[in-house]
């Protein structure tokens, strides 16, 4: 009987080694370990053994069963792994096939640049504000120190809605200075981006509607040095820290002293020449005009009920189209308002 058991063990182990599929294994399990299996059949003969032989033989039979079971388990996991491997191999795909298209929209490139600028100012303590585009001449001109009869008030420059020239499309975002100071007391820091309108025919560099970003800071002891510091910081954040800037005097009726800020041309590095020809980016000037600014005119502060002997401030106006076109190398202003999907999708 012992030989019989040993034989079963050897046969079973051989057969298990030869098995190739989970089905083969199951068949072998039934054949050797099942209720009607060979091992069970041998054990049924245990009754014919003597009382001394029975426990010994029982032990042998159990160890044979254990060996077969162990082998069965190990073959199961081996064959399972092989099967999985084969399945995975058969499921391989060409990962270079393009993904299912998902169409996402694009923010208008000019608004992308505007958003970056707004975020910079918010970080510097500026409140972003909005205001009317149809405006009173009083806010757009008079309270900004632009007298009656000033050329910018002409009907050749400004769009009007009435015969008395009192209601107009704002020609600048500067009326937001007045509106903000009317409702806020210093210290104040505001940024007012928005649409402005001037009577210019649309071409590569002009549009009857465009965008400005107005900034205003009023507090005690604000100096022109502060104006310079703020604007240099901002321009470094927009154009990079290697941007070389300069200030030069200019004239605006609502600031005094007034200035304009230029950036050294990134293409010709201020020489005005590229390969012996005139630099096309700065038109040979070596500098690119970025913005107008100045210390808020005392009369403007007074017009808003702020005491110019106690408070001072600075204001600035940035042309958004010019900034966006410079940043994104857009060479024709009309592209901005044409809204061609092929253009929008580039950004």
């Amino acid at each position, binding site marked *: 009987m012992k030989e019989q058991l040993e034989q079963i063990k050897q046969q079973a182990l051989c057969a298990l080694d030869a098995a190739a599929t989970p089905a083969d294994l199951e068949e072998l399990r039934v054949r050797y370990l099942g209720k009607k299996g060979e091992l069970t059949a041998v054990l049924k003969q245990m009754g014919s053994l003597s009382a001394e032989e029975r426990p010994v033989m029982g032990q042998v039979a159990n160890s044979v069963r254990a060996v077969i079971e162990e082998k069965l388990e190990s073959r199961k996991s081996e064959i399972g792994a092989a099967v999985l491997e084969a399945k995975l191999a058969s499921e391989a795909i060409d990962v270079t096939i393009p993904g299912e298209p998902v169409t996402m929209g694009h923010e*208008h490139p000019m608004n992308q640049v505007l958003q970056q600028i707004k975020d910079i100012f918010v970080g510097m303590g500026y409140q972003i504000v909005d205001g009317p585009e149809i405006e009173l001449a009083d806010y757009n001109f008079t309270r900004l120190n632009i007298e009656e009869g000033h050329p910018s008030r002409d009907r050749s420059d400004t769009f009007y809605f009435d015969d008395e020239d009192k209601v107009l499309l704002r020609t600048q975002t500067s009326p937001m200075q007045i509106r903000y100071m009317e409702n806020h007391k210093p210290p104040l820091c505001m940024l007012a981006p928005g649409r402005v309108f001037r009577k210019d025919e649309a071409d590569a560099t002009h549009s009857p509607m465009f965008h400005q970003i107005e900034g205003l800071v009023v507090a005690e002891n604000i100096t022109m040095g502060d104006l310079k510091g703020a604007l240099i910081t901002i321009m470094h954040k927009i154009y990079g820290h290697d941007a070389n800037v300069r200030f030069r005097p200019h004239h605006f009726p609502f600031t005094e002293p007034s200035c304009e800020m230029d950036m050294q041309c990134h293409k010709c590095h201020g020489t005005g020449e590229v390969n012996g020809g005139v630099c096309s980016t700065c038109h040979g000037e070596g500098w690119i005009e970025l913005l107008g600014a100045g210390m808020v005119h005392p009369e403007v502060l007074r017009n808003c009920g702020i005491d110019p002997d106690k408070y001072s401030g600075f204001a600035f106006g940035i042309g958004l189209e010019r900034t966006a076109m410079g940043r994104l190398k857009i060479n024709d202003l009309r592209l901005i308002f044409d809204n061609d999907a092929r253009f*929008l999708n580039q950004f």
Partner: protein
Amino acid sequence: MKLNRKWINEEFVDLSGVSDKEYVDKLTVFGQKVETYERLDAQIKNVVVGKVVSIVRHENSDHMWVCQIDIGQEEPVQIVTGAQNVKEGDLVPAALHNSWLPGGIHITKGKLRGVASNGMLCSLKELDLTLGDFPYAIEDGIWIIEEDCKPGDDINAVIGNDDTVVDFEITNNRPDCYSIIGLARESAAAFGLPMKHHEPVVQGSDAGSMYEKLDVEVPAEKLCNRYTARMVANVKIGPSPKWLRQRLRANGVRPINNIVDITNYVMLEYGQPMHAFDYRYVSSGKIIVREAEDGETLTTLDGNVRNLKPGMLVIADEDRAIGLAGIMGGENSEIMEDTTTVVFESANFDGTSIRQTALALGMRTDASGKFEKHLDPTMTVPAVNRACELVELLQCGDVMDGMIDVINFVPQPKTVTLEVDKINALLGTSIPEAAMVKYLNLLEIPVEGDQILVPSWRPDLNLMADIAEEVGRSYGYNEIPTTDFKTSTQGGYSPIMKLEAKTGAVCRALGYSEIITYSFVSPAIFDQIRLPADSALRSTLKIKNPLGEDTSVMRTTALPSMLDILSRNNKYHNKNVKLYELAKIYLPVAEKVLPEEPKILVLGSYGDGVNFFTLKGQVEALLNNLRIKKASYTAVKDNPSYHPGRCAKVTIDGVDVGFIGQIHPLVAKNYDIECEVYCAEINFTKLFDLQLPEPTYVPLPKYPTVSRDLSFVCDEEITVAQAEAVISEAAGKLLRNIRLFDIYRGVGVAEGKKSLAFSLELRADDRTLTDADSEKVTANVLAALGEKLGAVLR
């Protein structure tokens, strides 16, 4: 304002050692921005004075000549010319081999009918000159040079091209800089040098007194601050000398004759426009400065007949207008070859009036451009004397005794206190008082003690801040130390701006790209979107002076702007276009001066997969994401811009916020789009007030959800929304969610009927629902559907 550097160097302050680039950069950062600058000799290269040594007829031509030209070198060069006015011994401009002429013309050697020609002899025109520049030359022939020069000299030096013309952008507040003297003053101050001044001196003559000849009356005293006149007798009209012609030419002024050139020269030098009248045509010797009469006409020097109106200032004699004050003289009193007596006018007219007249007549001139800046009225006398001085210098007439000077203004000597500490506080500097005084003095602004005596030519200096600008720019804006201020303000966006930003982000996530369109539109858009004649949207704000009809009214609807852009993209053959805009519209408000400016969110699309339900799903997702209260959608048949069967009104909390749907095919056709176009217009400003409060946590369900599907047959007219409402009401509080999953028409469902299938989710918060619970709900729902909608279980 153009300026030739040589003039400044020769007369006012010698900056000849300063390079053009250095000069331009210095003046720009000093506050006189240079637009462009150009060497006058940049256009002409390798053209020299040549002397004709010999001239013989060309062997193969009966009109060409072969010349040997001495160009100051050992050997003469051979040049063939077709001109007939050259003879031996003449000095001529010779463009040598590899030379350049104005207009980018390149001259190289070659053969003319077999004879070598090493260049070209030039006419005035080929050198960009006119008879006004060199009156002794002839128009159609070689320029035979009568200047003091020798063979080999650069022709640029002969022409006077050895100069740089700098074009300045002059700001409105500095009328004084519209003159050579003004710019010389700025140049001297920028380089910290003193400036030379010249006081005009008139010798006088024995030609008599002007008072016996001329009388001036100024009835229009408000429009004429000052009228100064002098007279010259025994005038000999002729060309001006070369130096004067060259200075005019370098400044872009065409030389005409000595008297006219003198008035132009003084206008450039002093910035004071002048005019010369032929005394013969000043009827009765009387000049009257008055407003034009209604219907009065004047033929100006340019030959145009001008129709005048009251408010326009004219210079007249007793009978008629002889000049348009401050703009242009009249043809009837023009200086002619035979003019013998001249009246010089040097006046100060009201700038605003001159500007408005020039604008109304469409004739801005150099003179009107200067007057409109509001000139210094003290300038008329030195200017007229300078003109008389030049007459004597040019020996072209006898200056008469006397000067008529009508003064209609009260001189206002102005002083500003020099507040050193306040200036330093405003600039953020610590400039000592002595330095400030030095800066001001360099600008020829006298300071006595702490009082600044503002010169009459600086109307812009009134306040401490104005003085701070003068000090600041003299010190150098770029030298002012850069500082950082600290304030207690907090940066941020308003809540509506945050919602705008989020709306844009969601629209883009849904596949829509942003557009930016004009606020003004054509009034024709209302017909294009089929609005009825009585539509309230047709009442717009109209621009009184639009650029054109297409941009003449403020939009009251943003739909046409979107359709316009979709149309354009369609024309560009762009496929599957989805766009959005947060567009302001402008709605007039009764009794108010300013309109409302709400923002409308417009979605527009055409192409694959675009239909009503994809659009509706996107709008639902958007509103959901923005946490707007629940919207309801009702069919709208009478919105003329939309398909009558595919348009819904969007209502939230009883507020109508907009429309979604397919654009009416007739509207799409008006925009040249053949395919289906879908748009949504949602009043964003209203949405802002319809946001849900910030959410708070609701405990997750403890008990399972039971799902029940229900399908029933009802009349075709019953809408899904109606069925949903009935189900929701009947199902009661156990119903947590309801979803339509099928609509079926066809076999098994009678004609005129449809089958709707809904999935209901039921749940209780305090127990697990039993079959009995859910069956009770189903029974209630079916009963209600049957009773209210006549529906039966399928």
